[in-house]
């Protein structure tokens, strides 16, 4: 039985890895991925990381990439690929499945196996595991803290308290929104205790050992040490710690509506449960929500839970509902934020699937339920493949948001060909001009060029042989006889750049083209 359970979890991890890792480099880098890549580049090339409290989240992504790059002997930054960067978040996405081993006695074996499968094939989980941003790390560290906390609750052993502390420290150093998970977790713990004492008193008495305050203090110390070490760039930038606290006023402003990312309360649920863009397919992870509600209800009713801990299931349910509420009520929304509460929903869906099977005592109905649920898993897996590969950069994908256009790759290819024609290659001078510096992720794509200047307005004079200018500026450099306008290239929908090339360079470039 244990062997079959282990096989299912490993199979889920394998399926999860396959869906997350296939054709990882095809989607053009999102602006945020480009910024994260450049921040890692500074650490990789010059050993410098400085926490920026404005909008760029914590240091764990850069340091985890650094560690992976060291272990895998990554090349210099110029030759680093999207594959290598995104492999990090893929690993954390698969790690989330393996972490379930820590909560088997909380969820029950059946529920854990189903939760592993749902985590592996959830389209949202798959899509954002392939994104070089902080979110998957935040979800992983959050679950690490919960799982280690649960193990400590069960065993009262110091090492689990320390691991939970480390998990909290890593959450804290990943993304400022960890406070939402922390608040939801704290409230859920309190509410669950109230439920255990006042409402569920008819259940078996809980004989947990008394909490050891020294253990809790040690866990707290590890939390603070981990966060302090990372925010201060391992104690080389003491100001990083102060900046961590400075980040919150800006985030409170954004959360209150001072942002370009204000969306209605149902923004996340619409994407997860019923999303159909014009001429696009229907996307839904509704099965997971239905099973999660079933699992949560079973937790509160203490029915058909098998060997799962009703208290743990109730905690998960309270935590997930609270976190969903927090994220939905905050006006600031970007779609990847949904992962935090959706992971809780997936765990509850595992419980729900287990409960559904146990409702039938006879073998054949139970098998029929299992087959139907497996069909649901396969269907979710198909959706996951669709969002991950064919629709990876398509606006009809519910998880695509401010995605960079594939035309950026054409632009970079053209610029590289021009550099070859000029004979300067990486030394060719390029000017990039865009209002409000809205040119990301071009700094990532042009990283091999060492003489690139970045402007937010067209310089009055002094033009480079290659100018990449936002069309919003209407530079009309072709009106100067010395420039050729070599085309429009979309950075994102409605954000276009014009490529201007010096006439003599353009002629050299044309001469090098193969004759037709």
């Amino acid at each position, binding site marked *: 039985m244990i062997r079959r359970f282990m096989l299912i979890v490993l199979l889920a991890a394998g399926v999860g890895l396959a869906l997350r890792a296939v054709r990882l480099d095809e989607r053009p880098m999102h*602006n*945020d991925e480009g*910024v994260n890549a*450049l*921040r890692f580049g500074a650490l990789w090339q010059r050993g410098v990381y400085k926490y*920026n409290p*404005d*909008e*760029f989240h914590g240091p764990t992504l850069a340091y985890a990439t650094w560690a992976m790059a060291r272990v895998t002997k990554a090349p210099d930054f110029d030759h680093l690929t999207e594959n290598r960067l995104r492999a990090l978040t893929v690993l954390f996405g698969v790690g989330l499945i393996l972490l379930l081993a820590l909560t088997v006695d909380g969820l029950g074996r059946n529920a854990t196996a189903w939760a592993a499968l749902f985590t592996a094939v959830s389209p949202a989980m798959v899509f954002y595991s392939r994104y070089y941003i902080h979110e998957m790390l935040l979800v992983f560290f959050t679950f690490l803290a919960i799982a280690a906390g649960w193990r400590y609750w069960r065993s009262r052993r110091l090492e689990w308290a320390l691991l939970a502390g480390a998990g909290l420290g890593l959450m804290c150093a990943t993304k400022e929104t960890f406070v939402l998970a922390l608040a939801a977790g704290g409230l859920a713990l309190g509410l669950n205790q109230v439920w255990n004492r006042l409402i569920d008193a008819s259940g078996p008495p809980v004989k947990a050992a008394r909490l050891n305050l020294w253990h809790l203090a040690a866990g707290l110390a590890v939390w603070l040490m981990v966060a302090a070490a990372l925010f201060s760039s391992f104690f080389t930038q003491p100001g990083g710690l102060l900046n961590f606290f400075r980040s919150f006023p800006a985030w409170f402003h954004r959360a209150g509506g001072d942002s*370009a*990312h204000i969306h209605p309360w149902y923004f996340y649920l619409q994407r997860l449960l019923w999303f159909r*863009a*014009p*001429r696009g397919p229907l996307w839904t992870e509704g099965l997971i929500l239905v099973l999660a509600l079933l699992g949560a209800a079973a937790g509160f009713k203490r029915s058909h839970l098998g060997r799962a801990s009703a208290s743990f299931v109730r905690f998960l349910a309270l935590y997930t509902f609270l976190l969903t509420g927090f994220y939905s009520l905050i006006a600031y929304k*970007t779609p990847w934020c949904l992962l935090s509460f959706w992971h809780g929903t997936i765990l509850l869906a595992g419980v729900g699937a287990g409960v559904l099977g146990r409702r039938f005592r006879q073998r054949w109905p139970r098998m029929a339920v299992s087959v139907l649920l497996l069909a649901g898993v396969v269907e979710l897996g198909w959706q996951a493949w669709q969002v991950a590969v064919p629709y990876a950069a398509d*606006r009809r994908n519910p998880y695509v*948001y*401010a995605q960079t256009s594939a035309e950026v790759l054409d632009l970079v290819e053209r610029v590289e060909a021009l550099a070859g024609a000029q004979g300067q290659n990486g*030394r060719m*001078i390029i*000017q*990039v001009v865009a209002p*409000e*510096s*809205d*040119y*990301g992720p*071009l*700094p990532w794509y042009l990283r091999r060029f*060492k*003489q*690139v*200047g*970045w*402007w*937010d307005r067209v*310089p009055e*004079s*002094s*033009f*480079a*042989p290659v100018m990449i200018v936002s*069309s*919003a500026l*209407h530079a009309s450099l072709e009106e100067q006889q010395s420039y050729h306008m070599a*085309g*429009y290239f*979309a950075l*994102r*929908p*409605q*954000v*276009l750049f014009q490529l201007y090339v*010096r006439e003599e360079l353009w002629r050299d470039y044309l001469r090098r083209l193969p004759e037709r």
Partner: protein
Amino acid sequence: MIVRNCENASPVASLPSDQSLRFRLGLGFLAVMLLGGRLPAADSPNTTPAGTPVALTPLILKLPSPAEKGTPKDIPLGSNVEPLSTNARPPMLVPAGLTNLAPGATVTCSDRNAGPDMLAKLADGEKEPADQNIVSLRKGLQWVQLDFGSPKDLFAVVIWHAYKADLIYHDVIVRVADDPDFMQNVRTLFNNDQANTAGLGAGADREYFESNEGKLINTKGARARCIRFYSKGSTDGALNEYTEIEVYGRAALSP
């Protein structure tokens, strides 16, 4: 030495010390040429006009570093938007002898704040996207109307909303009628309001990017006394802005 007058300037490009002198000279002169410096005489690159040798120093070029930007705004692009074309628009074939009727028409609009002086800019021939050439109407669905005084045969319409950026105006609708109150013989010549948010009926035409070419609409000789142009804000804001309108036609011929 050439130094950019920009914020955040940092010396990201200084020539490595092991470069050959030839390369230094080449890049130095290239950069001087590109960045607005004066060229020395072609036959004496290392001398002053008086023939005195000049010591050349490597060019230190300072270029601003890229700024880090947060998550950009997710701007939806409807499925009915025409892709921005980089090719010149093909000519439209019309009968000979047409004139632009707009300058002689009486211009009115739905926005009471827009007076006759302001509306006169719509047909004054000034199409440059300068602020002084743009007429701004309040937000929501707004229209401007040209009354030609008598029936005309209309063959082509060109509309320039504000085109200072690549933006798309919503619910662009062009209608004609036989009276200024738009009660008699109302017909729709162009309508890209596919969702019928303007309430004038769903249209089958596509949204488009504004450009200096303006939007050319083939009105196929529609006979009418008045023509109205509707819009309902743009991807850039809620206001309805116009730079110029041209209507090509002729006096109505006897049926």
